[in-house]
Every structure is written in C-alpha cells, then in structure tokens.
C-alpha cells in the first residue's frame, strides 16, 4: 500500500473550504478530515490551498508548440512533451487538447498535422512520457469539405472524447464584423474595395454552401460514437436553437449575451475562456465573460490559449464578490463540471473514492503559485 497524507491544508471541496488533511492511498483519495494528521511522514502544506487537479476542456496550446515561430515546425513528439510540461505547470491534470479538424482560410496546414498530433499524444501517453492525462477535443471546422474525411480517420480513437462544431466565416459568429476582413484583404491583394467585396461574396457563398452539409455529418459522427458536442462561438438565438435541435448540450464561447441567455433557457451548459476574464474582455470585441458571470451564465471555464489562466481566474473571481462566484464555485467550473460533461466521473473533486489529482497552491500577493501537482497520488510537478 502506497500512502500519502497532506496536512495543514485549506482543502477546496465542491462547496466549501475546510482546514484539514487528505489521505491518499494507491493513487485514490481515501479520506478527508478536519483535523491535523499526526501520522509520521505526513506532508505539512503550511496553510496552502489543496485543489482538485484542473480539467481543461479546451486548450489550443499544443499547436503553438508545433509551430513555434511562424513557419518553423517542430517535431511532433517533442512538441507534445513541451506542451505537457506547460499544462501541468498550470495545475491541469486532465486536458482536452483541442485540435482543429479541417482548415480555415488562414491555416491550410492544419489538415496535415491532425493525425500526427494525435499519434504523438497517444504514443507519449502510452509510454508514460506525460505528466497530465491528455485527451482530445476535435474542433471540427464545418466550412472545410475535408472535415468529414478527417473526422472519419480519427473518431474511433479512444483518446478522442469531445466534438465541437466551428464555423469560421468572415462576417459570422466570432468575426461578425466583416469590415476588418475586407480591409485586410484590400491591403493583402492591393485590389479596390468593390473587387474585394465581390471576391468575398463569392467566398462566403462557397463556404456557406458546404457548411450545412458538413455540419450535419459532424453531428452524425458525434452521435454515432456518443461523444458530447459543443457548439462554438454562438452569436444569435438561432445559433443556439439550431445546435440544441441537433442534440448539442454545451455552448462554447458564446459571443453575445443573447446567445448565452438562450443557451441557459435551453438548459445548455455554457463554456467561457479564462483569458477573457483576466483581460477584462474579449480580444475580438465580443461579450465580456464577467458580464456572463454576473448573470450566472457560465458553467465551465477553460484556458483557451493561456495554460495557467484558469488558476489565476479562480482566485481572481474569489476576490470579486459582485460576481457571486466564491472559490469553490470558480474551482467547480474548471474541475468537476467539465469532468462530468466530458464523461469523466472518476475525478474533479477532493472527495474520497476519486482520483488523487491534486494541486498545492500558495498565494503570494494574491497571485496563485503552484507548489506541487500530484496525478493519481504521484508527485508530477
């Protein structure tokens, strides 16, 4: 029997914070109690917080390690390991690496790297080279006709656990203001406004023509494998209703408060990005997550593109009483709620019987600093 006891901790439970100890046996949380442990060999965490290991439902970050600089591509296995080290350093013990399926106009190379990225994640996981557990969230771009074929190649892999439906079209959803796109194209091509508008109209028609058919196929793939579906960047009430009618139960990064309210009305769960909270608004000028929080319209927070942003966000929210999100509530949004939505019921809380995925956090000037991370009872950082 392999036993570890952490004592002198502020344990962040699902709905309370208690001062106490947690006992871990063979990688599982065995017991929790309010007192100090007198067992020799107990680790005294000196009043630091013990949180459940974070569960990140959406990070784009792996791609950054694959393309380290513009046009500099890195070896896939090495990229995966470097990414993992950053993920675990953000207190994340279970990560859904969100990989783009299908290309957008800007990133055609995404078609080629999908398979090799998943191969590398599977290989490194099986060989014990990774500190966090990596699962895959397929972000399916419905404007690309190649998307169904790419999904078909990968959907039956056990590591694939979440499907999201994305539609990146200039003038829609996240980028609903088309004038930026037109300006950029004018600069890129040197053509006049009328020519660029004409070209864009044709492009939009062709993108839209394929997207409803591809969308339908993506939904069928997800249903056949019984995977949870996320709808990405919903802007309008209609976007939400369409997704709900297709069986989607999660709205990921809604870009307007109307869409988020409709998602709530349809009993869908709502995913928001922690960087948006920390920066005090959206990079692309869409709804601020704090506005959603103020109306109770956030269920899950993800790191999006900054691995350690979830932890910073949890402690920031705990200091913003007007948002009515105390520390346990903020932590739930990045642990038990995403774990359950993504089909993992063995983790996500400091609770006997669950995996001993735990992080020790020390506050320095209100900045949460990770002292240690345990995954299934093993010190991994």
């Amino acid at each position: 029997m392999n036993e570890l006891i952490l004592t002198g901790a502020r344990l962040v439970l699902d709905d309370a914070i208690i001062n106490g100890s947690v006992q871990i046996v063979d990688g599982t949380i065995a017991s929790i109690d309010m007192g100090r442990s007198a067992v020799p060999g107990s680790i005294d965490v000196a009043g630091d917080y013990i949180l459940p290991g974070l569960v990140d439902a959406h990070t784009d970050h792996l791609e950054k390690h694959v393309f380290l600089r513009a046009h500099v591509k890195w070896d896939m296995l090495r990229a995966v390991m470097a990414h993992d080290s950053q993920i675990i350093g953000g207190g994340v013990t279970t990560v859904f690496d969100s990989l783009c399926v299908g290309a957008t106009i800007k990133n055609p190379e995404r078609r080629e790297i999908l398979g090799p990225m998943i191969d590398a994640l599977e290989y490194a996981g099986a060989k014990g080279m990774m500190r966090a557990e990596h699962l895959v969230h397929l972000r399916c771009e419905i404007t690309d006709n190649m998307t169904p074929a790419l999904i078909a190649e990968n959907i039956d892999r056990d590591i694939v656990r979440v499907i999201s439906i994305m539609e990146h079209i200039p003038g829609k959803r996240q980028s609903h203001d088309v004038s930026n796109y037109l300006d950029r194209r004018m600069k890129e091509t040197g053509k006049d406004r009328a020519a660029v508008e004409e070209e864009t109209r044709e492009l939009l028609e062709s993108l839209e023509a394929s997207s409803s058919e591809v969308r339908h196929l993506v939904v069928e793939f997800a249903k056949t494998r019984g995977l949870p579906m996320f709808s990405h960047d919903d802007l309008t009430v209609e976007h939400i209703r369409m997704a709900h009618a297709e069986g989607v139960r999660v709205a990921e990064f809604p870009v307007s408060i109307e869409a988020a309210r409709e998602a709530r009305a349809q009993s869908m769960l709502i995913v928001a990005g922690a960087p948006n909270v920390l920066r005090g608004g959206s990079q692309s000028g869409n709804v601020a997550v704090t506005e959603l929080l103020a109306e109770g319209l956030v269920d899950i927070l993800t790191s999006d593109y900054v691995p350690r942003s979830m932890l910073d966000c949890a402690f920031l929210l705990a200091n913003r009483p007007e948002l009515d999100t105390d520390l346990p509530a903020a932590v739930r949004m990045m642990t038990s709620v995403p774990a359950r939505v993504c089909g993992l019921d063995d983790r996500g809380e400091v609770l006997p019987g669950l995996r001993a995925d735990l992080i020790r956090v020390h506050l320095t000037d209100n900045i949460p600093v990770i002292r240690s991370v345990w995954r299934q009872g093993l010190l991994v950082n």
Partner: protein
Amino acid sequence: MTEMLVTNARLVLADSILDGAVGVRDGLIRDIGEGPSSIADAVDFEGDFLIPGFVELHTDNLEKHLQPRPGVMWPSSAASVVAHDVQIAGAGITTVFDAVAVGEYSAASARRQMITTTVETVANPRVREVLRSEHLLHLRCELADPAVLDIYAPIADNPYVKLVSLMDHTPGQRQWADLDRWRQFNRDKKWTDLEFDQMVADRVAAQSQYVNRYRTAVIELARQHGTVLASHDDTTPEHVDEAMHDGISISEFPTSIDAAAHAHRRGMKVVMGAPNVVRGGSHSGNVSAIDLVQQDILDGLSSDYVPSSLMQSVFLLNQSAGIDLAKAVSFVSANPARMVGLDDRGAIEIGKRADFSRVRLIDGVPVILSVWREGRRVS
C-alpha cells in the same frame, strides 16, 4: 539543514558517467560515490540519469508569456513570469537569463513599458521567493534603435542584469545577410515591393546613424557595471575582431563557420541555438550548430525560443552526432556557467550547487521526471 541522498543514478559528471549516489546538504553537493547507497531514505533514481541543472543564457520565452497572442498584452507581468518559470524549470533549466529586447526598431511606448515592468518583476523579492529557477536578465541591445540607450541606461545597474548582448538586425547583413530570406521570414507583413525597398532603406539609414555611437556607449556602461558582454550574429571574422577589440567574451549565434572558427581561435566562447541542433539547421539558412560541434568550435548551446530544446539537443548530439554525453551536457551547464562567472554551479561536483534533473530515456527520448534547485525539488 536539509539533507538528501540520491542513489542508483547515472551521474553525468564533468567528463564521465558514473553509476552512483549523490549526497546533498544545505543546497550543495557534499558527496559523490560509486555504486548504490544502502541508506533507507535515499531517493532511488532507478538507473535514470542525474544531469546538472542547465544554465540558459538566452531565452526569448518570457516575452511569449507577456504577450500570449499578437496584440494581447497579459494583464499581470508577475503571473507571466511565474508561468514562464514553470516552463523553464520543467525543461531542466535551474539558472535562466531572461532575454529582454531593448529597442528592436519598435520602441513604441508599449514595448518600453514592457521592458520596465519585466525588469521590476524579475527583481521583485516577493516574486523571486516563489520562482523555481534562478532568474537573471540578459538585455538584448538593438544598436540601430535610437531608443536603445534611453532604455538601457536606467536599468544598467540593476543587480540582476548580468549579461548584455549587442545586436544589429539591420537587413542585408549578419543574420539577415540574404534580403530575400528576410522578406520571406516576414511574409506575414505582406509588404509590396515599394514598401519593402523603403523598409530596407530606412533601416540601413538608421544603422549608419546610430550603430557606432550606441555601440560605444552601451559597451562603456556595461563595463562600468561589470556586466558580461556578448556579440550577436557575428558573420565575418571582422565582426569577431571588432568584438574582441571591445572586450566582448561571447559570440552568440554566429551565422557563418568562418566567424565561429575565428571567434573560437581567438578565445571567444561560441554559443549556438539548441533549436538549430534539434532542427538540423538554422531557420534563417545560416550555419548548422552540429557542424560547429563536429569541428570542435562550439562552447555552449542556448534554448533561444524553445526551452525544452536544451535537453533534446544534448541527447541528439549524443545519439546522432556521436558526441560524448558528458561533453554534450557541458554545452548547457558548466560552459555557460563559466561564461557568465557563475562558478558555484553547472556541474555534479562536490561543493557545487545541488541543481540537477532526473532524466529517463524512453525509446531514446529524454523525459525529465523531476528537477531540484539547491537541493529543493522544483519540478
């Protein structure tokens, strides 16, 4: 008094590999012995490598955390430094020189503010207390930038500024001797021919106006503060001679074999980028680091823009280029430590700092399992 004993490790010493044990007390290496130890509390490395903590002289990685996406400045520089630090420690780097660009032709107020904030944050004792690796500063002074001295002078006496490099990224010479490659590297900017020509002309004009003046001034300031100097992207033997004449001891990322060989012959220390080793060549089409290793004119490797590339390059040099492992490790530990006068670390030797990593080879790939700095586990 903290004590630790590591046993059953493959110790990478200064010039050999030894299967044995290491004793640590008060943050220093106190004993090194051959064979396993029988002490019950010893940390069993199960045959994994024990490799000295790396000394990294030039990483651009902090800036990625300060600005996680183009145009997105992160609201807390302390949070950025802490996140960067986690990545650095996880890469087996226990002493890091965070490279901060001073100038770079865009000394707009945002960047200037970023430099000031970065230096303050890295020097802040409350932040230093929680950092895993020891962070020092490397100021990359862009000599063709009119703001370079205004930015450098007020921070020249900061106790953590231990290294200053002199750079000139004017297109048409050094790293960007080939203008087409420079344009290709910047293709996202989508310059028209006219814009491109104008850009080059402006930069060349700035170079002739500022470089000589600021070179002298920056060198003078660095000398006053005892700061080590490096010369960046040396391309010709003349660049090296000029650097030698100015008392510069490190040639960082020379772009040609001629410049590297000349620097080595004249006693300058030659540092190349580890990504160059991992990728099997330079991304800007310049000299390959492996060629320099094979001609025995390389002294150090730096992770440049990929923290994890140091460990990868060490084992690649060993496995693919046949370089002795202890020697490959010296490129990223003892040698760079000496270049900047940090004689208390960089080797598994009695009396040195207990900075080391536990590394396991899995199918030939180095996986860092844990890292200690001054005897304390930090990753």
